[in-house]
């Protein structure tokens, strides 16, 4: 284990040295350049047959899982609450967006525009999921502690049985007839949007509020954090993105049934969150990718691979409770103004000159 660690740190050192030798404009263009490159790749690689259909499918699942993991990480990782029914919100998004593309849009005579209306269907699905999130959040955050886990667990079960009992949308047989609208490019775009929005939120007042709730809820409220609002806002936003992921999921499978959104699915998302690391965007990306690809590679084990997931969670909790990247972040995911070197620069430029008058302070007598 320590060998791996030293290898990683040696690699990091080399990389840092190499990176700092780049000219400034190249550095600035790296992230946007890569984003554009991957976007073009996600459009043209499938068309040119560079990625076969199977790996396209896997990558699409990776993307959907990144959205799910990142959104659950908001609640469980950043805010430190314990929500275990994320698949319930995914189901809401999946069914609502499917109903829109299968029934509502054609009925409105918009059949030929459906591919363009897909984002709208997803967003409406997400908003509906967010609304259900709001309904759950109101009562469950009135109390403290583990109630959220119990409430979300039952929420997940309720969603599943309600869907199983509505004959109009197929009941237990499931709902089908969606056009296959989810392409690699769409998933890529949504993943980037999700990462960007959640990153902005996390590095804002609300993100800091959520973090303070994780650290010490009473102290948070005693330094003016409106804990109730922060909890509800965070939970609703997490549900919204789960709904988006559900919509994408429905339109890649072109067939959904209630069993796909059972507790097992929620557990998968939990495993990805804790594998990647709580309170980390990079960790969520890593966790979702590693877990999804791992399960694909373990396909030859058949049913036994479902043993691997829970087992992984158990070992993880014992040996690395914070996950791969727990509470750490890849630097390129941190907004420029939130990096330590920018703080130092601001201190030198704006704070120190202004504070020449603070000499009288008993803590800095020599200054």
């Amino acid at each position, binding site marked *: 284990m320590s060998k791996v660690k030293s290898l990683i740190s040696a690699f990091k050192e080399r990389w840092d040295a190499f990176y700092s030798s780049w000219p400034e404009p190249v550095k600035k263009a790296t992230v946007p350049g890569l984003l554009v490159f991957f976007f073009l790749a996600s459009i043209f690689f499938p068309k040119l047959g560079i990625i076969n259909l199977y790996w396209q499918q896997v990558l699409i699942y990776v993307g959907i899982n990144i959205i799910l993991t990142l959104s659950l990480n908001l609640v469980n990782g950043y805010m430190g609450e314990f929500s275990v029914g994320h698949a319930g919100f995914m189901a809401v998004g999946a069914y609502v967006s499917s109903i829109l593309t299968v029934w509502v849009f054609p009925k409105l005579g918009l059949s030929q525009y459906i591919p363009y209306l897909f984002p709208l269907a997803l967003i409406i699905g997400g908003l509906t999921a967010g609304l259900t999130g709001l309904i759950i959040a109101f009562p469950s955050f009135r109390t403290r502690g583990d109630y959220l886990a119990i409430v979300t667990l039952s929420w997940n079960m309720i969603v599943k049985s309600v869907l199983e009992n509505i004959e109009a949308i197929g009941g237990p047989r499931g709902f089908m007839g969606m056009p296959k609208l989810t392409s690699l490019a769409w998933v890529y775009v949504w993943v980037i949007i999700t990462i960007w*929005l*959640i990153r*902005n*939120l996390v590095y*804002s*007042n*609300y*993100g*800091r*509020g959520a*973090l*303070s709730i994780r*650290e*010490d809820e*009473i*102290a*948070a*409220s*005693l*330094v*003016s*954090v*409106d*804990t109730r609002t922060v909890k509800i*806002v965070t939970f609703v*936003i997490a549900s919204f993105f789960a709904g988006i992921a559900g919509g994408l999921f429905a339109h890649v499978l072109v067939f959904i049934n209630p069993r796909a959104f059972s507790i097992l699915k929620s557990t998968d998302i939990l495993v990805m969150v804790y594998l990647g690391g709580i309170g980390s965007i990079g960790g969520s990306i890593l966790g979702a990718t590693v877990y999804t690809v791992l399960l694909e590679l373990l396909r030859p084990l058949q049913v036994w691979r479902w043993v691997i997931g829970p087992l992984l969670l158990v070992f993880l909790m014992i040996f690395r409770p914070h996950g791969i990247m727990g*509470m750490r972040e890849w630097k390129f995911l941190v907004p420029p*103004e939130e990096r*330590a070197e920018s*703080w*130092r620069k*601001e*201190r030198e430029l*704006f*704070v*120190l000159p*202004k*504070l020449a008058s*603070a000499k*009288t*302070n*008993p*803590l*800095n007598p020599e200054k």
Partner: protein
Amino acid sequence: MPILKIRGLTHYFGGLRAVYDFNLDLEEGELIGIIGPNGAGKTTVFNLITGVYRPTAGEIIFNGHNLVGKRPEQIISLGIARTFQTLRLFKNLTVLDNVRIARFSRLKYSPVEAMFKIGRRVKESERETRLKCMELLEIMGLADKADWIASGLPYGLQKRLEIARALASEPRLLLLDEPAAGMNPAEISELMELIQWIRREFGLTIILIEHQMKVVMGICERIKVLDFGETIAEGPPAEIQNNPRVIEAYLGEEAAV
């Protein structure tokens, strides 16, 4: 008009009487001390003022607002800040974040604005907050450690960080709960100077709970002594030191040693 007026404040934990008929008139700019043996109800008074507990009876008027029944974050937003007897920093967060969180109620942008970073409002107010908090850290001698994780700071600096966090919300009334606990004599002298300095510099009214007699007697203008939840004496330090009831209840233990 007093900035803080407390009348008949009483609190029971089940059958246990923690605070009984506590009265206080605090003028703007005053620095008063609350002392008393362990379990006398000192911290409970702070918890009642800041809304952690709801008093069984009595009223607390701060600056014209009745605080009874308000939630802690509402009370803090009115201009009260406090530190804790045992450090309650956000341990896994950076030093700067610890301080910035205390300005939560002053940042008014919505979550949607935060996510889309629309317009100037988010960026400007964030920048302003960052600079203000960095200034505060500079004053407290913590600015070079702004990106440290709070739990990585030595104990003395963690104590200072807690005071910085309390000041960040720009309070008018500061409640300090045993700021000198665990400090050596040199650090205590520094702390005493610091308290008097921030009081002048930030125009604060301060209530201080302290076991270190040196601190209380040294800087407080007025002292209240609690024992079993009841106020047994009140007055300037010299008077308190010679009050027979106080000596019996509290200082007496020390005199006997």
